């Protein structure tokens, strides 16, 4: 008997196959990278090349949940829309009842609970998205969390999801330096460098959103990204020259 039909059924060796298949769907989605600095948080996503006639601005993979939290996802865009909608309502509901903005951990826990509920009810499939949630709590601490289709969540200093996530994560592990995280520019450059590893044709296919402490989220436009990319390429050339001499 195949154990991947109804998700409420465990397989004999303890797997929930539908959840694992959902994670496969995530691995097919475009890459997203998140880095947490001391005073800045950065999310970058790979922008898939769009058709000529398609309007560029309608494809947004980075969504603001509230003034102090935003998220990027990898996987099924339509599923993400549902989750983001519910999270936005919950952020406002929290503000109404508690008279304070949500903490990043709270809204991550909320999103994870929704995802977990869908792995334990009949007739519904899990959400096919992993998300990176970044932001600042109202006491100023930055956070980066990652959620998965199974409903688990973890805090990270830097992480990647989606296609080639493993490569990007290894790059981040190699190049993440605690001291660099003090400088906002270094954090942004680390995120861009990590994305450049897997994105075709350079800076054109990168979308980057940053949030500095006590400021609102800003999506960088193409010129700014190009500036960082050229700076990164210059640094690479210098490093190559030094190696040769």
């Amino acid at each position, binding site marked *: 008997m195949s154990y991947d039909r109804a998700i409420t059924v465990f397989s004999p060796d303890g797997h929930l196959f539908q959840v694992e298949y959902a994670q496969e769907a995530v691995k097919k989605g475009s890459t997203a990278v998140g880095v947490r600095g001391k005073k800045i948080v950065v999310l970058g996503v790979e922008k898939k090349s769009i058709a000529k006639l398609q309007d560029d601005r309608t494809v947004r993979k980075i969504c603001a949940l509230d003034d102090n939290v935003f998220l990027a996802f990898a996987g099924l865009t339509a599923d993400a829309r549902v989750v983001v909608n519910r999270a936005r309502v919950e952020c406002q509901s929290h503000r109404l*009842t*508690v008279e*304070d903005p949500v*903490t990043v951990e709270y809204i991550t826990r909320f999103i994870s*609970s929704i995802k977990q509920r869908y792995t334990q009810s009949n007739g519904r499939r899990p959400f096919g998205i992993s998300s990176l949630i970044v932001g600042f709590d109202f006491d100023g601490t930055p956070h980066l969390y990652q959620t998965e289709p199974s409903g688990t969540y973890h805090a990270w200093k830097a992480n990647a999801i989606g296609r080639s996530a493993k490569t990007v994560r290894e790059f981040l592990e190699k190049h993440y330096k605690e001291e660099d995280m003090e400088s906002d520019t270094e954090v942004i450059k680390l995120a861009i460098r990590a994305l450049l590893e897997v994105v075709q044709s350079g800076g054109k296919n990168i979308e980057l959103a940053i949030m500095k402490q006590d400021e609102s989220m800003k999506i960088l436009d193409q010129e700014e990204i190009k500036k960082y990319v050229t700076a990164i390429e210059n640094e690479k050339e210098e490093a190559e020259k030094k190696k040769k001499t």
Partner: protein
Amino acid sequence: MALFDVSGYKSHLELRGKTLGTGLRHFNFGTTNQEFAVPAGMDPSGFLKSCSHEGQGGVSIDLNHGTTTLAFKFRHGVIVAVDSRASAGSYIASKEANKVIEINPYLLGTMSGSAADCQYWERLLAKECRLYKLRNKKRISVSAASKLLSNMMLGYRGMGLSMGSMIIGWDNKGPGLYYVDDNGTRLSGQMFSTGCGNSYAYGVIDSGYREDMTVEEAYELGRRGITHATHRDAYSGGVVNLYHMQEDGWIKVCKEDVSELIHRYRKGMF
């Protein structure tokens, strides 16, 4: 229908077969699901109207708010003073009723109105505050705690609850003082007094209040307020329970009998 989801409208079919909705009450702090279900077809507010003076039949349920409680903020925190008489009509049920609920070391709630309502709903509030702390790993703020209580009251508005309460605490926004009552009113302020002796208490604390009082002066003002109210109001009496909310939590200052205090304050009278 436009905005169907946002409006919160639930058709009766949805309410019957809810399987996915019931688990996550804690994100709504228990405000969407009522604590007590009201049977379909009942109209508590209509029934109550017929029981008061305006209704026919000569039956009258009069809920007396027999108490005096007061609280005020000053430079060194918040002073809370309450009396301790529990009355059932003209019968004094207890002279040492406890009208302050210690929700946690940083939150206090006072009670006036129907003793049963106050005790029940404030203990429920204490439960929600504790759950909040366990889930979010930090103490609940005073504004959130008072909002929870007022939302609970709003759920049963018009159905005969009787509660006038003050929520006092110290959180990362500083000292907090909120007045919450059974109509769902929720007010933040510098000074409140509730119960049928409140006018006497207001007279005393209004005339003696200064923001830069010393701690001892503030204690004395709180004691005086309650003592003079119990002297004139038949439904207040017993002892004065005095609390001081400081930055690192509340302390219980004293518990003194008003019949002795009144002699101290009205020297020429007796």
